[in-house]
Each structure stands twice: as C-alpha cells, then as structure tokens.
C-alpha cells in the first residue's frame, strides 16, 4: 500500500536512509506515512515561521507527497503545506504510532 502511495507521487527511492534512533529528515520520509515531528534544525526564524504554520516538535503530520530528497507536501492540522527541500531536510521525524 505504501508502495502504491509512493508510486502515485511519482517518486522512487534508490536508497532509503534511516538513522540509528529512528529519526530521519522529512525529505527522506515515504509518502503516505503518518509521522511525528521530533525536532527541527535550523535558524530560529525558520522554526518560528513553521510553528506559526503548525509544524513544531510533537505535532503529527501526514506526508502526502515527497520523500527521497524531493520537495514535499504534508498535511498538518488540517492544512496542506508544501516545503522545499531546504526546509524538509531540517525537519526530523519519527513514525507516529
């Protein structure tokens, strides 16, 4: 089913990256998964801007589209937000249970 979602998004990964403690940057996450934001690296300004749009540590989101180092589309708190790669690789996520 996840394969299907990935295919729908048109993205095929050559290699899936995972780090040791289960955290990975959002830009590497698979489409169709529910994820939880574990942390945000990067400047305070960017973090705060994201917080205002509903993305901050602890929040759950669904990756609609993206992964594998591409820009992505996430659904968070009822809104659809698009993130460039420069933003999505700063968001660390873990899978939500």
């Amino acid at each position, binding site marked *: 089913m996840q394969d299907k979602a990935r295919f729908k998004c048109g993205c095929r990964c050559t290699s899936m990256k995972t780090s040791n403690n289960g955290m990975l940057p959002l830009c590497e996450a698979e489409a169709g998964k529910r994820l939880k934001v574990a942390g945000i690296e990067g400047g*305070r*300004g960017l973090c*705060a*801007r994201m917080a*205002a749009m509903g993305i901050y*540590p602890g929040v759950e989101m669904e990756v609609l*589209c993206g992964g594998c180092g591409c820009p992505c*589309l996430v659904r968070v708190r009822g809104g659809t937000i698009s*993130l460039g790669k420069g933003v999505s690789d700063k968001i660390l996520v873990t899978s939500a249970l």
Partner: protein
Amino acid sequence: MKDTGSQVLIALAGNPNCGKTTLFNALTGSRQHVGNYPGITVEKKEGSYSLNGNLLRLVDLPGTYSLTAYSLEELVARDFLVQERPQVVIDIVDASNLERNLYLTVQLLELGIPIVVALNMMDAAESRGIEIDVSELSRRLQVPVIPTVARTGMGKVGLMEAAAGVATAKQAWTPLHISYGPDIDPVLDRMEREIKDAGFLTDILPPRWTALKYLEDDEQVIGKGKETDPELSARLESMSAQVTDHLGKTLDTYPEAIIADHRYGFISALLKDGVMRQSRKADRLYMSDQIDRVVTNRFLGPLIMLLILYLVYQFTFKYSEVPVELLESGFSALGSYAETTLPEGPLKSLIISGIIDGVGGVLGFVPLILFMFFAIALLEDTGYLARVAYMLDRVFRTFGLHGSSVMSFIISGGIAGGCAVPGVMAARTLRSSKERLATILTAPFMNCGAKLPVFAMLIAAFFPARHAQIMLLLTLLSWAAALLLAKLIRVTILRGPSTPFLLELPPYRLPTFKGLLIHTWERTWQYIKKAGTIILAISILFWALMFFPALPEEKKHPFDAKRQAVLAQVPPEHLPAFTEGTGEPAFTGAESLRERLADIDRDASQAALRYSYAGRMGTGLEKITQWAGFDWRTNVALLSGFAAKELIISTMGTAYSLGQTDEEENRSLSDRLAGDPQWNPLKAFAVIVFIMLYAPCFATVVCIIKESGAWKWGLFSMVFNTAVAFFLSVLVFQAGHWMGLGG
C-alpha cells in the same frame, strides 16, 4: 456631523486563504483582485461600509499566520494594529481549518486589541462534517463570533453590527494571559515586571507581549527596544538568551516551539467538549489531497501543467476569434467612412491615423484579453496556481529564485496576458532581497497583455496556421529567457544563498462564476481604461512625431517633377479622366503609368515619414538595428513601445497607413504586413523576440524603481533588457538568414 476623527476604523486580519479578501470585497463592494495564493494582499487596501448611515472605514491587512515579524506581511499587519490602533479587528478564521486559524486569533487576544471573530467558510466546514458550537466558542473566547460565508455574503450584516458594537464600546486593550509552562512562565513574569516598572514601550505595547517578543527573538521589537532603553533591552535579551540556552541544553528545543506548543494547547482546550466536532465524513477533505497526488505528481504534474497552459491558449484564441474580427472590421469600416467624408489635411490624418487606428488597434484585442483573463482567474480561484509554485520551486531554486517568484512571473504574463506592474509588486512576498530583486528584474521578460496583441498580430500575419502553438512557444521562450537571465543576475551582481520554500496550498475550490466574472472584468477594464487614456494621448503624440515636420518644398519638388514627367506621357485628351481617376482612360499604357505614379506617391510619403522626428530617430537607429533586420518603421514602433507596449501596434498601424497613399482597401495591419515584401516570417520572429525582451514600459520601470528603492535598478532594467533583446534578435535574424530562412 461625520468628521474623519470620529470615524470607526476596522481592520481585517486573518490567515492567507481564509477568504479575507473575498469578505472584504463583499463588505466594501470594492473592485479588487482576489487571488487564492498567500500574499496577494500585501498592500494595504481600504474601503468603507455603511451601517445605518454611519460610514465604517475598513482596512484589509495582509494575510498572516502570526504577529511576529518573520515576514514582510506580518510586519505590515502588526505595525498597522499597533500604530493605527483600529477600534476593532475583524479576525477572519477558516471554519474548516479552525485549529490552525485560531493561532492568529490567540495572538490577537494576547495583544489585547478588541476583536470580532468572523467564522468564515461555514459552508465548507459543514460539507466536511465539521460542527462548531458558535455560542460556546464565543463564550470561551469572550469575543463575538459571527458565522459567515464570504462567497455568498452570508452573515456580513451581523458581522458589521457586532464589529460596530465592539468599536463603540471603546474597550481598553485587555491582553489575554496564556500559561507557557514551567520553563517559560517564571522568566516571562520577571520580564513583564521589569517592563512594566520601567514603562518600557508600554505606550503602544502590552508588557507581557513585549516580553514574549523578546523570547521569540523578534528583531523589530528588539530593535525598537534598543532605541528606547538600551540598558533594559540588553537585560531582557540576556534573560531571553538564558532561557533559550537552557531549553536547548535540557529539552533540545527553543522558546518559539514551547510557545507555539502552548498556544496550540490553549486552542485545543478551547475546542474541547464539543465546541468543534468532526463527524467522520471527512472524505471531501481528502479529495483535495487525492487531486494533489495526481496533479503534483513528479512525472504527471509537469505534463498536466503544460497541458493546462496549452488549453488556456486554445481557449483564449479560439473563442476570441469571432469578436476580434468583428471589432477589427468595425474599426476598418469607421476608417473608410472617415476617409471618404473628411476633407484632406492634417485633421483627417490625425483622426484616421492617430485616433481610429490607434484606439482600434488596442480595443480590437479586448476580447482576446477578456478570455485570457478569464482563464487566469479560473486557475487562481481554483487554487491551482499555488500548486504551480510548489512544483516549480525546485526549478526556480536552480535559477537562484524562489518558488514564490512564480507568482510574480505569472502575474507579469507567465501565462501570457498579465501585466508587469502588479507582477513586480507581487514580488513583495519574497523574503530574501536578492531573490526578490532578481524576480523584479526578470518578471518584465514575461509576455504581458500589452505585448500579446503585437504577437497575435504578427502571428496572424506570418504564422496563421499555428496560432496556439506559436504562442505556447513564445511563452516557453520568455520563461527560458527570464530564468536564465535570473541565474545570470544571481551569479553576478546579486550573489547569495536561497531562502527556504514554505507555502500553504489552499484546498481546491470551485470558483464562483460571479467571482470569475468580476476578476475578468476588472483586469479587462483596466486595460480598456489604459487604452482609452494614456494610450490614446501617446498615440496622438506619436502621430505628431510622425507627421511633423512636413517635407520642405525643395524636397517635395523632385517628386512633383517626376509626377509631371509621368503625366506628360498621358495623351492630352485623356488627361482629365486620368488625373481624376473617373472612368477608364482608354489608351495603351495607362495602367503602367498609373503604377509609376503610385510608386512616386509611395516614395514621397516614405520620404515625408523619414523626414519626421520619429522617422529621423528610426532612421538613425537603422544602422544598428539592420543587424536584426529592423527597418526604421519597426524602429519607430519599438520606440513607442518604451512608453507602453500597447502602442507598438498602433504606431505600426499609423506608420503603415501613412506610408501607403494608394487607395487600397483599409485592410488590417496584419494583412498589410503579410503583403509587405520587406516582411517575412524570420523578420517577424526577430521582432517578436525583441519585443518580448526589451526595456519594460515606463510604468513598469517606475514600479521597479519604487520596489527596489533605487533608481539604478530601473535604469539597469532598461539598458540590460534592451541589450539582451537586441543581442538575441540579431542572433535569431542572422542565424535564420544563414540557414536560408526568410529569403
């Protein structure tokens, strides 16, 4: 009675895409453009609403997510609230996306400014199965909450009554206190106390709010604080730094995250116990996502985008064909009528060549522009344009721009038919000044609505069978030029890193037909107004430049002598019939004599035009422009395009009708050019390339100067663009010639 001092001032605040501009239009009836992407309302828009005979002043603030100065819009919105202190703020929240929208509401409450909440898009919320207990929400927020549907105008009277009620109550600002937990609260309290004791900025800002801004590292507030009381400001900063440091070490987080977390916590508490319920009928909510899966697909997305752009052209050209022809023939008929009825002289020339041809050339394309704007409004209002920005961010990043640059480009004419003036202004949404400047400088390369008629005319003359295909090609060309030149600018005079891309995509919406018509009409009307005033005036000015000074007698003389020589060959008994042109002169060789006379007339009028001011300029430039295949008449037309691109066509019309004295039918300009031996598809294409890229019109140049804050950028765009345009059109012309094209 109603002096402006006592007039009630109401501000409209809300997230991007919450329907704020739609509501503003519904309230004020003002004719403005409503877009579906964030940032369109970055300018301050004003209007008024009459409630029981009292005029309420309304200001539409830019759409923002927060009141911390992270973006220009937020800064503008906050400055207005703090400086102008409106009696009441109408906070528009999207009922179908309540949680996120209330984030701004909470910040307004923390600021303490009196607010009324407009619970907008109630219809969308209902269709998603969201139920909201309005009276309970109002009780918990302790502000009036009025359900509205901006698209239909539902609830607007109630909303304004509530707003006027709050405004007349003249409440003092009463800031809301939210607990930010054990890590923030103690230091926040301490900071608040220090601020209160020192009276630090308390004339305009609530103490706790100022403290919060210090914790949120708000550059603007901190900057202002430094000016007011450097010592206290430094103390507050160090307190904030301590907390930030502590949070980073112990929790691996930062104050903003904790603050945001608690604000959202406050919001979920607000909405608990059935204030907001969502039945699991949420399929519709995800319909937007399903569409996005296909439409923004990495492979399908770009194809769909190209297809949509192509359909826009097909739609525009197919449906506008008939009315365009009708208008054209109407103006032709008017011209012929003037030709036969008016007495010879400068006035006749002015009316036919200056006014009828000038205005006709511009108005003749109104249907085309009308259809084009309709298509663009459709793309904007459905929400598709934001997807285009998302999909193109990667591409734009490669060229040193930002995904949001696409809005500037599209408004400027990225989907042919925009205008560079609002396009340049739309670049205000960009944060990084370098990306912004690069966008401002390259947006005018797009095919604006004024270049379109010229292209359409040349295409009709030289590529009649491939209307839509050529237009698509031209669009792709202008994009390529804009992107490559942006890259050039970004690696040379504007070097620097890119800013992150973060954009909310509005859910797909079915636009209202009325809304589409309003948008279409507004833009078309602007075009007509422009055509009716500036363009007519400048069209006349250019007619004068081309009509004066008249050929001096000694230069007219050789032509008269030649005419006499021809007439001498006419047998005397046939002379009256020959000169008057009545009846067929029955002698051998009459036809060839007539042709020789016509040739002389053509030469004479050509000489007259060359002798005129405009002709002299055009002729002077011929030495250079011949490399691109432009003759002086094209030069004259291009010169007029500096004033406004719309004028190219009317100047060309004037130039060609002046240059032809033989009594042929008053054919449209494109037919004339198609029949002109000096023109061919290659030359036409070189001209198109030049027009696409050369110096923006004066209005745009003024805008560039205003937006960039420096004269040099306006000047730069004129010189740089013209140089690039000339280089490329020479390249096209010479390469085409070398390949044996164009004859």
